[in-house]
């Protein structure tokens, strides 16, 4: 049937074909989306909302704002006050708030809030609140007589900042800044614990990734080149640790590596080390690296294996027949073809290593702790906003890596076993 010029193609019931097709496609899209919708709602409720809530908490702390109403009101009226020399009214408001805190037992909460940016203020607040009810005007002289620290500009800056419920302060604290008399400044070199631990976490993760790559490469190559029956058997040795409980594997490493453990006993029995010179391989960084390498190794072997399996052996044979040495063949022909597997495995292992918590917590001792353990530490000390801020910083770096993984490899290619 030839199309008449200018006339639209229509369906049997007279609708334009283009519109009918679009309607059908929209219906199909809606149907596909409806299938995914229940899961999306579930993930929204139990995953996205909690993380969003955590991000909100990283900006939010009302410990001081809710327990010092007079001072909050005064700060709101006098935004341009001089922190180096606050007037008498400010001190009057402070003393009345301190007296109130003593009655309502909120001194600890308020002091903790200021303590994040100006260390050492909890005891100052407790001391001030105890005597606040007995102080007589002029309050400025009276309070400074109790403790001259009440006149510190850093303290007044800190209280002004804490009078707002929402603040970016926790991110400053989590990147090793603190409030000095002149304003926010980076802490001294030896006090930069947070960024140091971030750096250490990334370095240790990179080290573990490299060790995993070095161990996984020969194994994956062997598995990919052996006949299927043999490689299936050996594959069990890779998959069994993968399926075994993380806590079981961590326990076994404690059993193997601790001072009275199997490895040390064997070394002593063989006479390689002295009984008094047993190696300290557990409850330090060595323990963390060994146990994490063991836990993450399958995540490197499996992607490498799936790439190596499909590399035709004829390429290597062709290179050899053209006169390349075995080293040149490996370096110029085989290795470049395994790069996708190397990238996939390395990124996955690195991402998983950066966020690791359980293994360092159990075998790391004091020296082998990573950034996740610091988050857990602050959670256990009820420093929720600070924990949330560190977690948010970790989250951003993980999401960047995840985005990179999706760009380079594509999440569709993620597979197990």
């Amino acid at each position, binding site marked *: 049937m030839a199309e008449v010029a200018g006339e639209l193609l229509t369906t049997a019931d007279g609708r334009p074909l283009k519109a009918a097709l679009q309607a059908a*496609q929209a219906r199909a*899209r809606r149907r*596909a*989306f409806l*299938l*995914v919708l*229940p*899961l*999306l709602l579930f*993930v929204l*409720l*139990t995953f*996205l909302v*909690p*993380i969003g*809530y*955590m991000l909100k908490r990283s900006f939010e702390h009302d410990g001081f704002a809710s327990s010092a109403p007079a001072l909050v009101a005064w700060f709101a009226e006098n935004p341009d006050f001089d922190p180096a020399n606050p007037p008498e009214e400010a001190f009057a408001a402070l003393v009345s708030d301190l007296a109130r805190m003593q009655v309502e037992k909120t001194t600890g909460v308020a002091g903790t809030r200021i303590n994040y940016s100006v260390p050492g203020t909890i005891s100052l607040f407790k001391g001030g609140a105890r005597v606040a009810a007995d102080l007589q005007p002029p309050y400025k002289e009276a309070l400074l007589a109790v403790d001259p620290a009440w006149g510190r500009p850093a303290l007044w800056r800190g209280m002004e900042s804490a009078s707002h419920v929402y603040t970016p302060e926790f991110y400053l604290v989590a990147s090793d800044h603190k409030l000095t008399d002149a304003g926010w400044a980076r802490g001294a070199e030896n006090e930069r614990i947070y960024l140091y631990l971030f750096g250490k976490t990334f370095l240790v993760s990179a080290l573990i990734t490299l060790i995993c790559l070095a161990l996984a490469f*020969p*194994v994956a190559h*062997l598995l990919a*080149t052996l006949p299927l029956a043999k490689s299936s058997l*050996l594959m069990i040795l*890779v*998959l*069994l*640790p993968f*399926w*075994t*409980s993380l*806590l*079981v*594997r961590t*326990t*076994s490493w*404690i*059993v*193997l590596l601790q001072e*009275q*453990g*199997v490895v040390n006993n064997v070394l002593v029995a063989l006479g390689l080390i002295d009984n008094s010179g047993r190696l300290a391989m557990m409850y330090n960084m060595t323990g963390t690296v060994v146990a994490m390498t*063991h836990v993450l*190794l399958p995540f490197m072997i499996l992607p490498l294996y799936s790439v190596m399996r499909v590399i035709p052996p004829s390429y290597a044979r062709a290179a*050899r027949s053209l006169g390349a040495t*075995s080293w040149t063949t490996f370096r110029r022909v085989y290795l470049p073809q395994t790069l996708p597997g190397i990238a996939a495995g390395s990124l996955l292992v690195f991402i998983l290593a950066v*966020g690791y*918590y359980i293994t360092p917590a159990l075998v790391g001792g004091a020296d082998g702790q990573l950034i*996740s353990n610091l*988050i857990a530490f602050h*959670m256990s000390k009820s420093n*929720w906003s600070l*924990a*949330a801020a560190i977690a948010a910083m*970790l*989250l951003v770096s*993980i999401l960047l890596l*995840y985005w990179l993984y*999706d760009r380079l490899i594509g*999440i*569709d290619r993620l597979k197990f*076993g």
Partner: protein
Amino acid sequence: MALPTYASPLERVWYYTYLVICALIFLFLIAPILVILPLSFNAEPYFTFTEKMLTFDPEGYSLRWYDALLTLGHPTADAPRDAAWWSTAWERATWIRAAKNSFWIGIWATILATTLGTIAALGLSRPEMPYRRLIMALLISPMIVPIIIIAVGMSFFFAKACVAPDSAMGAIFGMFLSEKGCLANSHLGVIMAHAVLGIPFVIITVTATLSGFDQSLIRAAHSLGANPRTTFFKVIMPLILPGVISGALFAFVTSFDEVVAVLFIAGPDQQTIPRQMFNGIREAISPAILAVATILVVISVLLLASVELLRRRSDRLRGVTGR
């Protein structure tokens, strides 16, 4: 890689070195799991092989640490073991309670993750799915985002996610929530958290199975008069079932092994095996932990075997030969 006939002597030496290196790496992978099996039968409270164990003296071995799993937390542990003793053990023994909690939470989390995940995977593998890449990235992210971040977020949110126990909502949902009517410290909270963590595994395995699925089978079913329900249960489901079951097993293992979320959002009534182990390793490590570990290794061997069998069956159904 068999050695080619033209290999030089140096290459021969290197080839055998390479095999030895591989053997050592396999040893590294498997030795930690193997070493705890005999040690869990140790007659002494040590974590290393005693002389009697090394000479295979039967006195060096015992089941005392397995017995400890029954008696820890048992109010009358030394009483004669009659029916009443066993029923008390079933109710009160710490490890048995933890095991019951772990299984309950694991089973419900698996059901939730597998049902929602399979339906979503069906939608995601349709070619007309909008924003496929973005949604996929979101659904996989619980596996990528560090568990500590998820646990911190949940501990904030679940403590606020409450209903008043005396309200209408409280009357309906109260039995699933904690005494205060919150998701925190409740079984439901832990089940939801574990379901979210298991979902990526279900999505990955089921979409992988569906990628080999012939979409024209659905059209064939429709053209033969089957309605969507019949098509799903009689045509789609039997073909993707191996993928669904292995996804479910992954989800179950994830829940069964999960400890961080439990540490942050669960109360004392949700003590699970991993949490009990975590506390045990942190505080006073006893060889009873090794007995639990051995039992868990046996469970994971069984799970691994089922997944392998399922994968072979699935490959056969899809006409894929070899691996």
